[in-house]
């Protein structure tokens, strides 16, 4: 009787190790299965192909006269395009950047000095600053002025006053010709 019990115990022990390995493999397979199944569900929330196709915008700036400003749409946001006058360029370049809250040289913000391309969304809380249309207030630096909380931007789109913490964002863009740009 005791002998039978003993052999049962040793059998059980050997069986246990084999069972543990099998169960371990089974559990591991289950985990891999569940995780690889979750990925398509999560990835389906990422931008779809048609959204991604609209992630770049091409635009020819040739019709914009010197001193004119135009707003276009990119990824659902406004993009300010300004054909800067020589005065505006000089004012932008002459600023001592150590006085700026978000120090950036004008040359770091433009590819060609006469064209300023930036996202027209105030870095404070997201309103669209004024200054694009004739008759809009431009603020004391002749740049842009946000009416929501009074943030003030200069002719390089850098924040000079008000609650905005950062300069207006420069989107990724390239010139595809002398006057045409591809944004995004």
């Amino acid at each position, binding site marked *: 009787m005791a002998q039978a019990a003993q052999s049962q115990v040793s059998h059980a022990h050997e069986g246990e190790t084999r069972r543990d390995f099998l*169960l371990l493999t*089974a559990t591991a397979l*289950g985990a891999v299965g569940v995780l690889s199944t979750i990925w*398509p*569900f999560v*990835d*389906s*929330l*990422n931008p*779809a*192909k*048609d*959204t991604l196709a609209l992630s770049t915008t091409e635009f020819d700036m040739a019709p914009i006269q010197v001193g004119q400003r135009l707003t276009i749409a990119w990824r659902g946001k406004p993009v300010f395009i300004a054909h800067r006058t020589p005065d505006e360029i000089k004012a932008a370049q002459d600023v001592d950047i150590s006085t700026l809250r978000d120090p950036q040289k004008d040359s770091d913000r433009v590819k060609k000095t006469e064209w300023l391309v930036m996202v027209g969304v105030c870095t404070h809380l997201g309103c669209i600053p004024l200054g694009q249309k004739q008759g809009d207030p431009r603020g004391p630096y002749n740049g842009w002025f946000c009416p929501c909380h009074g943030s003030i931007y200069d002719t390089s789109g850098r924040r000079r006053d008000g609650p905005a913490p950062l300069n207006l964002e420069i989107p990724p863009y390239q010139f595809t010709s002398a006057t045409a740009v591809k944004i995004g």
Partner: protein
Amino acid sequence: MAATGPGMPNSRIVRWIDYRLPFVKMMQHELYEYPTPRNLSYWWNFGSLAGIMLVIMMVSGIVLAMHYTPQSNEAFDSVERIMRDVNYGWLLRYIHMNGASLFFVVVYIHIFRGLYYGSYKYPRELLWMLGVVILLLMMATAFMGYVLPWGQMSYWGATVITNLFSAIPVVGSKIVTLLWGGYTVSNPTLNRFFSLHYLLPFVIVGVVGLHLVALHTHGSNNPLGIDHKGPGDSIPFHPYYTIKDSFGLAVFLLIYAILVFYAPNFLGDPANYTPANPLQTPPDIVPEWYFLPFYAILRSVPSKLFGVLLMFSSILVLFIVPWLDTSPVRSARFRPIYKKIFWLLVISVLVLGYVGAHPPEGIYVIEGRIAAFYYFLHFLVLLPLLGKLERPRPLPLSIGSAVLGRSGTPAE
């Protein structure tokens, strides 16, 4: 502090939570040590499979709903956008579409299992009736879901079925107008179907919860149909049935995967890839396969009203099966005559399904009527009579003795 059982986490955090809300203790009791008959066959896997299908349908449905537009002029296009542009959208859609079919496969097998082994008998009558409620909710959910892609079959299937309610005397057409929200199946209909299609699965979850509580009150039936008499008759749910259910799940998922990846449109109707056209009826209006037997019963009589009544009766008769069947013996294993006529029921349902897929002409009419007649004969006449007239085989003393008395290896 509440003590948790063997193998369950026993950390201080778990004990803190459990003392206030005994969730872990409940899980451990219901899924771990829960005594289950030792002789359950693979026919008992289908309950857990149904539960898993419910989860898969809800998760895939919720993600699909993030991309779907329930407006009649945009619905079809939004589904195509899911298929073409949304990352893995085609996979989600095919999972949801074929999941509906497999959900019904699993539930139908689960129901027939219950009919064969007498799982609806005392003390499980309420468990059974809750199951029939779940079936009804599933049918409503599936019907409305099929309308959402707004294809030709979506539109015309909805038109045919909602028109059935006009058979109700006096108030019929007013009810139909109320259902439609307009003068035909149209945008308001689609909008409300989307809302209800999203809602009903959560109702199903609630009823499934009740179904499981009822189940756990007296435990599962078993292939022998006899009650458990002592501890020798039962084994803990974990690890025996957790591993067996996992194995069954893997086999089921293989079938699911073959369908989704290699034959995703096999069970569907090509007509639904044509956008709904209210001015053109497709040559054959056919519901999805899981509704075909009921569709055949509907069309088996020339009267619209009686067809509708007969169709609903075919499901309602299931509610009273516990009282229609008068046999003192549960499992068909010990009922030599019932065992054979059970298969006649299965065949009649299959014939009804076959007939439902064809236009109601010629031989299909005759076949459909015979099969429908047998269906009701089976439940309303044969079940009550057999219980009284049949001589059942002698039952074993207990589950344990039946299982161990054979070759010493446990019954599968």
